[in-house]
Protein backbone atom coordinates (compact mmCIF):
# COMPACT_ATOMS: atom_id res chain seq x y z
CA UNK A 1 0.00 0.00 0.00
CA UNK A 2 2.77 2.36 1.05
CA UNK A 3 4.63 1.48 -2.15
CA UNK A 4 1.61 2.38 -4.26
CA UNK A 5 1.19 5.71 -2.49
CA UNK A 6 4.85 6.50 -3.06
CA UNK A 7 4.60 5.63 -6.76
CA UNK A 8 1.50 7.77 -7.06
CA UNK A 9 3.21 10.70 -5.32
CA UNK A 10 6.17 10.24 -7.64
CA UNK A 11 3.99 10.45 -10.74
CA UNK A 12 2.03 13.42 -9.35
CA UNK A 13 5.17 15.37 -8.42
CA UNK A 14 6.72 14.60 -11.82
CA UNK A 15 3.59 15.82 -13.58
CA UNK A 16 3.56 18.92 -11.38
CA UNK A 17 7.10 20.05 -12.02
CA UNK A 18 6.72 19.37 -15.74
CA UNK A 19 3.56 21.45 -15.78
CA UNK A 20 5.24 24.22 -13.81
CA UNK A 21 8.12 24.19 -16.27
CA UNK A 22 5.70 24.71 -19.17
CA UNK A 23 4.02 27.58 -17.28
CA UNK A 24 7.28 29.35 -16.33
CA UNK A 25 8.50 29.07 -19.92
CA UNK A 26 5.47 31.03 -21.06
CA UNK A 27 6.07 33.95 -18.66
CA UNK A 28 7.94 36.71 -20.51
CA UNK A 29 11.14 37.77 -18.78
CA UNK A 30 13.13 40.89 -19.29
CA UNK A 31 16.49 39.92 -20.79
CA UNK A 32 19.32 41.96 -22.14
CA UNK A 33 20.50 40.07 -25.21
CA UNK A 34 24.24 39.75 -25.38
CA UNK A 35 24.79 41.12 -21.86
CA UNK A 36 26.87 38.08 -20.90
CA UNK A 37 29.57 38.88 -23.44
CA UNK A 38 31.11 41.63 -21.30
CA UNK A 39 32.16 39.01 -18.76
CA UNK A 40 34.40 37.19 -21.19
CA UNK A 41 37.97 37.65 -20.00
CA UNK A 42 41.03 37.75 -22.22
CA UNK A 43 42.26 34.58 -23.90
CA UNK A 44 45.43 34.50 -21.79
CA UNK A 45 43.42 34.15 -18.56
CA UNK A 46 41.03 31.67 -20.11
CA UNK A 47 43.97 29.51 -21.15
CA UNK A 48 44.93 29.26 -17.49
CA UNK A 49 41.38 28.38 -16.57
CA UNK A 50 41.11 25.67 -19.21
CA UNK A 51 43.46 23.30 -17.30
CA UNK A 52 44.91 21.73 -20.41
CA UNK A 53 41.67 21.70 -22.38
CA UNK A 54 42.20 25.01 -24.20
CA UNK A 55 41.48 23.43 -27.58
CA UNK A 56 38.05 22.28 -26.42
CA UNK A 57 37.37 25.68 -24.86
CA UNK A 58 38.28 27.32 -28.18
CA UNK A 59 35.77 25.03 -29.94
CA UNK A 60 33.03 25.91 -27.48
CA UNK A 61 33.63 29.67 -27.73
CA UNK A 62 33.76 29.38 -31.52
CA UNK A 63 30.45 27.49 -31.66
CA UNK A 64 28.92 29.99 -29.24
CA UNK A 65 30.29 32.90 -31.36
CA UNK A 66 28.65 31.53 -34.52
CA UNK A 67 25.27 31.41 -32.77
CA UNK A 68 25.77 34.79 -31.06
CA UNK A 69 26.85 36.74 -34.13
CA UNK A 70 23.98 35.32 -36.15
CA UNK A 71 21.46 36.48 -33.54
CA UNK A 72 19.79 39.48 -35.15
CA UNK A 73 18.06 40.49 -31.90
CA UNK A 74 21.37 41.91 -30.63
CA UNK A 75 22.01 44.97 -32.83
CA UNK A 76 25.30 45.86 -31.14
CA UNK A 77 26.63 42.29 -31.25
CA UNK A 78 29.57 43.17 -33.47
CA UNK A 79 31.07 45.44 -30.82
CA UNK A 80 33.14 42.57 -29.39
CA UNK A 81 33.72 40.68 -32.63
CA UNK A 82 37.46 41.22 -32.70
CA UNK A 83 37.78 40.44 -28.97
CA UNK A 84 35.90 37.14 -29.23
CA UNK A 85 37.98 35.89 -32.14
CA UNK A 86 41.21 37.01 -30.47
CA UNK A 87 40.24 34.85 -27.47
CA UNK A 88 39.74 31.82 -29.71
CA UNK A 89 43.08 32.58 -31.34
CA UNK A 90 44.79 32.77 -27.96
CA UNK A 91 43.28 29.45 -26.86
CA UNK A 92 43.97 27.56 -30.07
CA UNK A 93 46.19 29.56 -32.44
CA UNK A 94 46.31 26.80 -35.06
CA UNK A 95 42.53 26.55 -35.37
CA UNK A 96 42.08 28.06 -38.84
CA UNK A 97 38.29 28.07 -39.29
CA UNK A 98 37.55 30.83 -36.73
CA UNK A 99 39.84 33.34 -38.46
CA UNK A 100 38.09 32.78 -41.78
CA UNK A 101 34.58 32.72 -40.35
CA UNK A 102 35.34 35.75 -38.12
CA UNK A 103 36.52 37.74 -41.13
CA UNK A 104 33.47 36.60 -43.09
CA UNK A 105 31.14 37.82 -40.33
CA UNK A 106 33.03 41.11 -40.10
CA UNK A 107 32.82 41.70 -43.85
CA UNK A 108 29.34 40.53 -44.76
CA UNK A 109 27.40 41.03 -41.52
CA UNK A 110 29.17 43.79 -39.64
CA UNK A 111 30.39 45.54 -42.82
CA UNK A 112 33.59 46.25 -40.92
CA UNK A 113 36.51 45.80 -43.25
CA UNK A 114 39.14 46.85 -40.68
CA UNK A 115 38.02 44.18 -38.18
CA UNK A 116 38.05 41.55 -40.92
CA UNK A 117 41.59 42.54 -41.83
CA UNK A 118 42.59 42.52 -38.13
CA UNK A 119 41.27 38.96 -37.71
CA UNK A 120 43.01 37.76 -40.88
CA UNK A 121 46.24 39.52 -39.86
CA UNK A 122 46.01 37.74 -36.49
CA UNK A 123 45.56 34.44 -38.31
CA UNK A 124 48.65 35.13 -40.41
CA UNK A 125 50.67 36.20 -37.37
CA UNK A 126 49.85 32.96 -35.54
CA UNK A 127 50.15 30.80 -38.66
CA UNK A 128 52.76 32.37 -40.93
CA UNK A 129 52.71 29.30 -43.20
CA UNK A 130 49.05 29.79 -44.12
CA UNK A 131 48.62 31.63 -47.44
CA UNK A 132 44.84 31.54 -47.09
CA UNK A 133 44.75 34.57 -44.76
CA UNK A 134 46.63 37.11 -46.92
CA UNK A 135 44.82 35.69 -49.94
CA UNK A 136 41.44 36.34 -48.30
CA UNK A 137 42.51 39.82 -47.18
CA UNK A 138 43.60 40.59 -50.75
CA UNK A 139 40.35 39.21 -52.12
CA UNK A 140 38.25 41.39 -49.79
CA UNK A 141 40.35 44.46 -50.60
CA UNK A 142 39.92 43.84 -54.33
CA UNK A 143 36.28 42.83 -54.47
CA UNK A 144 34.73 45.00 -51.77
CA UNK A 145 36.99 48.02 -51.40
CA UNK A 146 38.37 48.07 -54.94
CA UNK A 147 41.63 48.94 -53.22
CA UNK A 148 44.03 47.30 -55.64
CA UNK A 149 47.12 48.65 -53.92
CA UNK A 150 46.13 46.85 -50.70
CA UNK A 151 45.06 43.77 -52.66
CA UNK A 152 48.43 43.71 -54.41
CA UNK A 153 50.22 43.90 -51.04
CA UNK A 154 48.30 40.93 -49.61
CA UNK A 155 48.54 38.85 -52.80
CA UNK A 156 52.28 39.41 -52.75
CA UNK A 157 52.47 38.20 -49.13
CA UNK A 158 50.37 35.13 -50.02
CA UNK A 159 52.50 34.43 -53.11
CA UNK A 160 55.67 34.37 -51.04
CA UNK A 161 54.33 31.65 -48.73
CA UNK A 162 55.43 28.17 -49.70
CA UNK A 163 52.70 26.01 -51.14
CA UNK A 164 50.48 28.88 -52.26
CA UNK A 165 48.44 28.00 -55.37
CA UNK A 166 49.36 29.55 -58.76
CA UNK A 167 46.06 31.43 -58.93
CA UNK A 168 47.45 33.96 -56.42
CA UNK A 169 50.08 35.07 -58.92
CA UNK A 170 47.30 35.60 -61.46
CA UNK A 171 45.31 37.66 -58.96
CA UNK A 172 48.45 39.63 -58.16
CA UNK A 173 49.06 40.34 -61.85
CA UNK A 174 45.45 41.39 -62.27
CA UNK A 175 45.76 43.82 -59.32
CA UNK A 176 48.84 45.32 -60.98
CA UNK A 177 46.86 45.72 -64.20
CA UNK A 178 44.03 47.44 -62.34
CA UNK A 179 46.56 49.83 -60.80
CA UNK A 180 47.51 50.89 -64.34
CA UNK A 181 51.05 49.48 -64.28
CA UNK A 182 50.60 47.76 -67.65
CA UNK A 183 54.29 47.05 -68.28
CA UNK A 184 54.71 45.09 -65.03
CA UNK A 185 51.36 43.39 -65.60
CA UNK A 186 52.48 42.37 -69.12
CA UNK A 187 55.75 40.99 -67.74
CA UNK A 188 53.92 38.96 -65.10
CA UNK A 189 51.27 37.57 -67.43
CA UNK A 190 53.95 36.61 -69.96
CA UNK A 191 55.82 34.76 -67.24
CA UNK A 192 52.62 32.93 -66.24
CA UNK A 193 51.97 32.06 -69.90
CA UNK A 194 55.50 30.77 -70.50
CA UNK A 195 55.77 28.80 -67.26
CA UNK A 196 52.42 27.04 -67.31
CA UNK A 197 51.77 23.63 -68.85
CA UNK A 198 48.05 23.85 -68.23
CA UNK A 199 46.17 24.81 -71.42
CA UNK A 200 43.42 26.48 -69.43
CA UNK A 201 45.90 28.68 -67.54
CA UNK A 202 47.68 29.47 -70.82
CA UNK A 203 44.36 30.58 -72.31
CA UNK A 204 43.64 32.78 -69.25
CA UNK A 205 47.12 34.31 -69.44
CA UNK A 206 46.75 34.84 -73.17
CA UNK A 207 43.47 36.72 -72.68
CA UNK A 208 45.09 38.90 -70.02
CA UNK A 209 48.04 39.54 -72.30
CA UNK A 210 45.58 40.56 -75.02
CA UNK A 211 43.82 42.91 -72.62
CA UNK A 212 47.07 44.38 -71.26
CA UNK A 213 48.51 44.99 -74.72
CA UNK A 214 45.21 46.57 -75.79
CA UNK A 215 45.27 48.84 -72.73
CA UNK A 216 48.83 49.94 -73.52
CA UNK A 217 47.99 50.50 -77.20
CA UNK A 218 44.77 52.37 -76.47
CA UNK A 219 46.66 54.56 -73.98
CA UNK A 220 49.21 55.35 -76.70
CA UNK A 221 46.57 56.01 -79.37
CA UNK A 222 44.48 58.16 -77.02
CA UNK A 223 47.56 60.31 -76.30
CA UNK A 224 48.17 60.73 -80.02
CA UNK A 225 44.49 61.56 -80.57
CA UNK A 226 44.66 64.33 -77.98
CA UNK A 227 47.72 65.83 -79.64
CA UNK A 228 45.99 65.58 -83.01
CA UNK A 229 42.89 67.28 -81.65
CA UNK A 230 44.94 70.03 -80.07
CA UNK A 231 46.64 70.75 -83.37
CA UNK A 232 43.72 70.37 -85.80
CA UNK A 233 40.85 71.06 -83.44
CA UNK A 234 39.07 67.93 -84.58
CA UNK A 235 39.41 64.15 -84.37
CA UNK A 236 40.98 62.22 -87.25
CA UNK A 237 38.67 60.26 -89.55
CA UNK A 238 40.79 57.15 -89.26
CA UNK A 239 43.71 56.05 -87.12
CA UNK A 240 46.05 56.01 -90.12
CA UNK A 241 45.78 59.84 -90.11
CA UNK A 242 47.75 59.83 -86.84
CA UNK A 243 50.66 58.15 -88.65
CA UNK A 244 50.41 60.57 -91.60
CA UNK A 245 50.54 63.52 -89.18
CA UNK A 246 53.51 61.85 -87.39
CA UNK A 247 51.76 61.50 -84.05
CA UNK A 248 52.30 57.77 -84.29
CA UNK A 249 55.02 55.71 -85.99
CA UNK A 250 52.50 53.06 -86.95
CA UNK A 251 48.92 52.13 -86.04
CA UNK A 252 49.14 49.43 -83.36
CA UNK A 253 47.23 46.19 -83.79
CA UNK A 254 45.90 43.88 -81.10
CA UNK A 255 47.63 40.65 -80.01
CA UNK A 256 45.76 38.70 -82.69
CA UNK A 257 46.88 41.13 -85.44
CA UNK A 258 43.51 42.81 -85.80
CA UNK A 259 42.87 46.55 -86.01
CA UNK A 260 41.30 48.38 -83.09
CA UNK A 261 37.79 49.73 -83.63
CA UNK A 262 37.88 53.53 -83.78
CA UNK A 263 34.84 55.80 -83.47
CA UNK A 264 35.75 59.10 -85.14
CA UNK A 265 32.76 60.88 -83.60
CA UNK A 266 33.63 60.21 -79.99
CA UNK A 267 37.31 59.30 -80.27
CA UNK A 268 36.70 56.02 -78.45
CA UNK A 269 38.86 53.02 -79.26
CA UNK A 270 37.88 49.43 -78.55
CA UNK A 271 39.24 46.02 -79.25
CA UNK A 272 37.66 44.12 -82.12
CA UNK A 273 36.69 41.31 -79.75
CA UNK A 274 35.99 41.07 -76.02
CA UNK A 275 39.23 39.66 -74.48
CA UNK A 276 37.35 36.82 -72.71
CA UNK A 277 35.58 35.75 -75.90
CA UNK A 278 38.63 35.32 -78.12
Amino acid sequence: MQKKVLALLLIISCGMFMGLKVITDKIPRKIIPGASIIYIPSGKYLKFASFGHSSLLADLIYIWAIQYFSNYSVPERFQYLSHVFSIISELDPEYLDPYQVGALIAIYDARDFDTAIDILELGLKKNPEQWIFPWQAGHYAQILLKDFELAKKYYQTAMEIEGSPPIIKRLYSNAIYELGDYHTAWKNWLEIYNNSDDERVKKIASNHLYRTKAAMDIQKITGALKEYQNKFNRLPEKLADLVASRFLDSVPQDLDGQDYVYDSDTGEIETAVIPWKR
Partner: protein
Amino acid sequence: MKIRAVALNTFKEAIRDRILYLLLFFAAVSFILSRLLSLLTVGDKTKIIIDAGLSSLSIFGVLMAILMGTGLVYKEIDKKTVYTLLSKPISRNQFILGKFLGLIITLFIMLLVMTAIFFIIILLHSGTISWKLFVSLGFVFLELCLITSVALLFSCFSTPILSSIFSLSFYLIGHLSWGLETLIKKMSPGITKILTQVAYTLLPDLENFNFKTEVVHNLPIQPEMFLFSFFYGITYTFFILMLAMLVFRKRDFI
Protein backbone atom coordinates in the same frame (compact mmCIF):
# COMPACT_ATOMS: atom_id res chain seq x y z
CA MET B 1 53.53 -12.86 -6.58
CA LYS B 2 52.23 -11.10 -3.47
CA ILE B 3 51.93 -7.81 -5.36
CA ARG B 4 50.01 -9.67 -8.08
CA ALA B 5 47.57 -11.05 -5.52
CA VAL B 6 46.90 -7.59 -4.04
CA ALA B 7 46.63 -6.07 -7.51
CA LEU B 8 44.18 -8.72 -8.66
CA ASN B 9 42.09 -8.28 -5.57
CA THR B 10 42.09 -4.49 -5.95
CA PHE B 11 41.06 -4.87 -9.58
CA LYS B 12 38.21 -7.23 -8.66
CA GLU B 13 37.07 -4.79 -6.00
CA ALA B 14 37.38 -1.78 -8.30
CA ILE B 15 35.32 -3.22 -11.14
CA ARG B 16 32.49 -3.82 -8.71
CA ASP B 17 32.39 -0.12 -7.86
CA ARG B 18 29.27 1.48 -9.32
CA ILE B 19 30.86 4.91 -9.61
CA LEU B 20 33.12 3.49 -12.32
CA TYR B 21 30.16 2.62 -14.51
CA LEU B 22 28.46 5.90 -13.79
CA LEU B 23 31.53 7.78 -15.00
CA LEU B 24 31.80 5.47 -17.99
CA PHE B 25 28.19 6.22 -18.85
CA PHE B 26 28.77 9.98 -18.67
CA ALA B 27 31.91 9.63 -20.77
CA ALA B 28 29.92 7.75 -23.43
CA VAL B 29 27.21 10.42 -23.33
CA SER B 30 29.79 13.18 -23.78
CA PHE B 31 31.25 11.35 -26.82
CA ILE B 32 27.81 11.21 -28.39
CA LEU B 33 27.18 14.86 -27.47
CA SER B 34 30.42 15.85 -29.19
CA ARG B 35 28.92 14.53 -32.43
CA LEU B 36 25.87 16.75 -31.88
CA LEU B 37 28.05 19.71 -30.88
CA SER B 38 29.98 19.41 -34.13
CA LEU B 39 26.75 20.03 -36.05
CA LEU B 40 26.68 23.59 -34.69
CA THR B 41 30.06 24.55 -36.09
CA VAL B 42 31.12 26.04 -39.40
CA GLY B 43 34.17 24.29 -40.83
CA ASP B 44 36.00 21.23 -39.56
CA LYS B 45 33.56 19.07 -37.60
CA THR B 46 36.09 16.32 -36.91
CA LYS B 47 38.17 18.74 -34.83
CA ILE B 48 35.26 19.34 -32.48
CA ILE B 49 34.63 15.59 -32.08
CA ILE B 50 38.32 14.85 -31.40
CA ASP B 51 38.73 17.79 -29.01
CA ALA B 52 35.62 16.94 -27.02
CA GLY B 53 36.45 13.22 -27.08
CA LEU B 54 40.03 13.57 -25.90
CA SER B 55 39.04 16.02 -23.18
CA SER B 56 36.22 13.73 -22.01
CA LEU B 57 38.59 10.77 -21.91
CA SER B 58 41.07 12.76 -19.88
CA ILE B 59 38.53 14.35 -17.50
CA PHE B 60 36.56 11.16 -16.80
CA GLY B 61 39.76 9.15 -16.53
CA VAL B 62 41.08 11.60 -13.93
CA LEU B 63 37.78 11.48 -12.05
CA MET B 64 37.93 7.68 -12.01
CA ALA B 65 41.52 7.76 -10.76
CA ILE B 66 40.76 10.29 -8.04
CA LEU B 67 37.41 8.94 -6.83
CA MET B 68 38.64 5.37 -6.68
CA GLY B 69 42.27 5.98 -5.77
CA THR B 70 41.50 8.13 -2.76
CA GLY B 71 39.55 5.34 -1.10
CA LEU B 72 42.02 2.55 -1.88
CA VAL B 73 44.02 2.50 1.34
CA TYR B 74 41.57 4.45 3.47
CA LYS B 75 38.83 1.82 3.03
CA GLU B 76 41.22 -0.93 4.13
CA ILE B 77 42.11 1.04 7.25
CA ASP B 78 38.53 2.10 7.93
CA LYS B 79 37.14 -1.43 7.57
CA LYS B 80 40.14 -2.76 9.49
CA THR B 81 40.88 -5.28 6.73
CA VAL B 82 44.40 -3.86 6.65
CA TYR B 83 45.12 -5.72 9.94
CA THR B 84 44.33 -9.07 8.36
CA LEU B 85 46.35 -8.22 5.29
CA LEU B 86 49.44 -6.94 7.04
CA SER B 87 49.48 -9.84 9.48
CA LYS B 88 50.20 -12.05 6.45
CA PRO B 89 53.75 -12.27 5.08
CA ILE B 90 53.30 -9.19 2.93
CA SER B 91 55.27 -5.98 3.27
CA ARG B 92 53.67 -2.55 3.36
CA ASN B 93 55.53 -1.61 0.16
CA GLN B 94 54.11 -4.64 -1.63
CA PHE B 95 50.65 -3.69 -0.41
CA ILE B 96 50.96 -0.14 -1.81
CA LEU B 97 52.39 -1.37 -5.11
CA GLY B 98 49.66 -3.99 -5.44
CA LYS B 99 46.96 -1.41 -4.76
CA PHE B 100 48.49 0.93 -7.35
CA LEU B 101 48.78 -1.75 -10.03
CA GLY B 102 45.25 -3.00 -9.38
CA LEU B 103 43.79 0.43 -10.01
CA ILE B 104 46.05 1.01 -13.01
CA ILE B 105 44.75 -2.20 -14.62
CA THR B 106 41.17 -1.05 -13.96
CA LEU B 107 41.86 2.38 -15.44
CA PHE B 108 43.56 0.82 -18.44
CA ILE B 109 40.51 -1.32 -19.18
CA MET B 110 38.18 1.66 -18.69
CA LEU B 111 40.34 3.74 -21.01
CA LEU B 112 40.15 0.95 -23.59
CA VAL B 113 36.36 0.88 -23.39
CA MET B 114 36.11 4.69 -23.64
CA THR B 115 38.60 4.72 -26.53
CA ALA B 116 36.55 2.10 -28.38
CA ILE B 117 33.40 4.25 -28.12
CA PHE B 118 35.40 7.36 -29.08
CA PHE B 119 36.93 5.65 -32.13
CA ILE B 120 33.56 4.32 -33.30
CA ILE B 121 32.22 7.89 -33.26
CA ILE B 122 35.23 9.23 -35.18
CA LEU B 123 35.04 6.38 -37.69
CA LEU B 124 31.35 6.96 -38.26
CA HIS B 125 32.08 10.63 -38.92
CA SER B 126 35.33 10.74 -40.86
CA GLY B 127 36.21 7.13 -41.67
CA THR B 128 39.84 7.46 -40.57
CA ILE B 129 41.84 7.55 -37.35
CA SER B 130 45.20 9.26 -37.10
CA TRP B 131 48.03 7.29 -35.45
CA LYS B 132 48.76 10.43 -33.42
CA LEU B 133 45.54 9.82 -31.52
CA PHE B 134 47.08 6.68 -30.04
CA VAL B 135 50.08 8.71 -28.89
CA SER B 136 47.83 11.29 -27.25
CA LEU B 137 45.82 8.54 -25.54
CA GLY B 138 49.04 6.91 -24.34
CA PHE B 139 50.00 10.12 -22.61
CA VAL B 140 46.50 10.48 -21.14
CA PHE B 141 47.09 7.05 -19.57
CA LEU B 142 50.48 8.17 -18.26
CA GLU B 143 48.80 11.19 -16.68
CA LEU B 144 46.23 8.86 -15.10
CA CYS B 145 49.06 6.75 -13.64
CA LEU B 146 50.53 9.84 -12.00
CA ILE B 147 47.16 11.02 -10.68
CA THR B 148 46.48 7.51 -9.32
CA SER B 149 49.76 7.51 -7.43
CA VAL B 150 48.92 10.94 -5.98
CA ALA B 151 45.44 9.77 -4.94
CA LEU B 152 47.04 6.70 -3.35
CA LEU B 153 49.53 8.88 -1.48
CA PHE B 154 46.78 11.03 0.03
CA SER B 155 44.70 7.94 0.73
CA CYS B 156 47.50 6.73 3.02
CA PHE B 157 47.00 9.50 5.55
CA SER B 158 43.76 11.33 4.81
CA THR B 159 40.02 10.84 4.41
CA PRO B 160 38.60 10.23 0.91
CA ILE B 161 36.99 13.69 0.72
CA LEU B 162 40.17 15.53 1.66
CA SER B 163 42.24 13.22 -0.54
CA SER B 164 39.94 13.95 -3.48
CA ILE B 165 40.35 17.70 -2.91
CA PHE B 166 44.14 17.35 -2.64
CA SER B 167 44.37 15.14 -5.73
CA LEU B 168 42.16 17.46 -7.74
CA SER B 169 44.34 20.38 -6.62
CA PHE B 170 47.39 18.43 -7.77
CA TYR B 171 45.71 17.99 -11.18
CA LEU B 172 44.83 21.69 -11.42
CA ILE B 173 48.29 22.81 -10.28
CA GLY B 174 49.79 20.41 -12.80
CA HIS B 175 47.94 22.16 -15.59
CA LEU B 176 48.64 25.66 -14.27
CA SER B 177 52.31 25.39 -13.34
CA TRP B 178 53.42 26.47 -16.83
CA GLY B 179 52.18 29.94 -15.88
CA LEU B 180 55.07 30.21 -13.42
CA GLU B 181 57.46 30.25 -16.37
CA THR B 182 55.90 33.54 -17.53
CA LEU B 183 56.20 34.90 -14.00
CA ILE B 184 59.87 33.86 -13.74
CA LYS B 185 60.66 35.64 -17.00
CA LYS B 186 59.26 38.87 -15.59
CA MET B 187 61.02 38.59 -12.21
CA SER B 188 64.25 40.41 -11.46
CA PRO B 189 67.18 38.18 -10.36
CA GLY B 190 67.26 37.34 -6.67
CA ILE B 191 66.28 34.79 -4.05
CA THR B 192 62.55 35.01 -4.92
CA LYS B 193 63.31 34.19 -8.52
CA ILE B 194 65.44 31.22 -7.48
CA LEU B 195 62.73 29.94 -5.13
CA THR B 196 60.07 30.36 -7.83
CA GLN B 197 62.35 28.54 -10.25
CA VAL B 198 62.71 25.67 -7.74
CA ALA B 199 58.94 25.57 -7.21
CA TYR B 200 58.39 25.54 -10.97
CA THR B 201 60.76 22.61 -11.44
CA LEU B 202 59.35 20.70 -8.48
CA LEU B 203 55.66 21.17 -9.23
CA PRO B 204 54.10 18.69 -11.64
CA ASP B 205 53.81 19.83 -15.24
CA LEU B 206 50.91 17.83 -16.63
CA GLU B 207 51.08 19.84 -19.84
CA ASN B 208 53.96 17.53 -20.72
CA PHE B 209 51.35 14.83 -21.33
CA ASN B 210 48.99 17.09 -23.24
CA PHE B 211 49.36 16.46 -26.98
CA LYS B 212 45.75 17.19 -27.87
CA THR B 213 46.48 20.30 -29.95
CA GLU B 214 49.23 18.56 -31.90
CA VAL B 215 46.92 15.64 -32.65
CA VAL B 216 43.97 17.76 -33.70
CA HIS B 217 46.01 20.02 -35.99
CA ASN B 218 48.37 17.27 -37.12
CA LEU B 219 51.36 19.32 -35.97
CA PRO B 220 54.83 17.77 -35.87
CA ILE B 221 56.12 16.74 -32.43
CA GLN B 222 59.80 16.33 -31.69
CA PRO B 223 60.57 12.67 -30.84
CA GLU B 224 62.64 13.92 -27.87
CA MET B 225 59.48 15.53 -26.50
CA PHE B 226 57.73 12.13 -26.49
CA LEU B 227 60.70 10.42 -24.96
CA PHE B 228 61.41 12.95 -22.20
CA SER B 229 57.72 13.42 -21.38
CA PHE B 230 57.37 9.66 -21.08
CA PHE B 231 60.33 9.39 -18.68
CA TYR B 232 59.15 12.48 -16.80
CA GLY B 233 55.80 10.75 -16.18
CA ILE B 234 57.43 7.49 -15.15
CA THR B 235 59.90 9.10 -12.73
CA TYR B 236 57.33 11.45 -11.20
CA THR B 237 54.93 8.53 -10.63
CA PHE B 238 57.80 6.51 -9.13
CA PHE B 239 58.67 9.43 -6.83
CA ILE B 240 55.08 9.77 -5.59
CA LEU B 241 54.79 6.01 -5.09
CA MET B 242 57.98 6.02 -3.01
CA LEU B 243 56.54 8.86 -0.98
CA ALA B 244 53.31 6.90 -0.48
CA MET B 245 55.31 3.88 0.69
CA LEU B 246 57.25 6.03 3.15
CA VAL B 247 54.05 7.54 4.55
CA PHE B 248 52.40 4.14 4.81
CA ARG B 249 55.41 2.68 6.59
CA LYS B 250 55.16 5.42 9.20
CA ARG B 251 51.47 4.74 9.87
CA ASP B 252 50.63 3.14 13.15
CA PHE B 253 47.54 0.92 13.05
CA ILE B 254 47.40 0.10 16.73
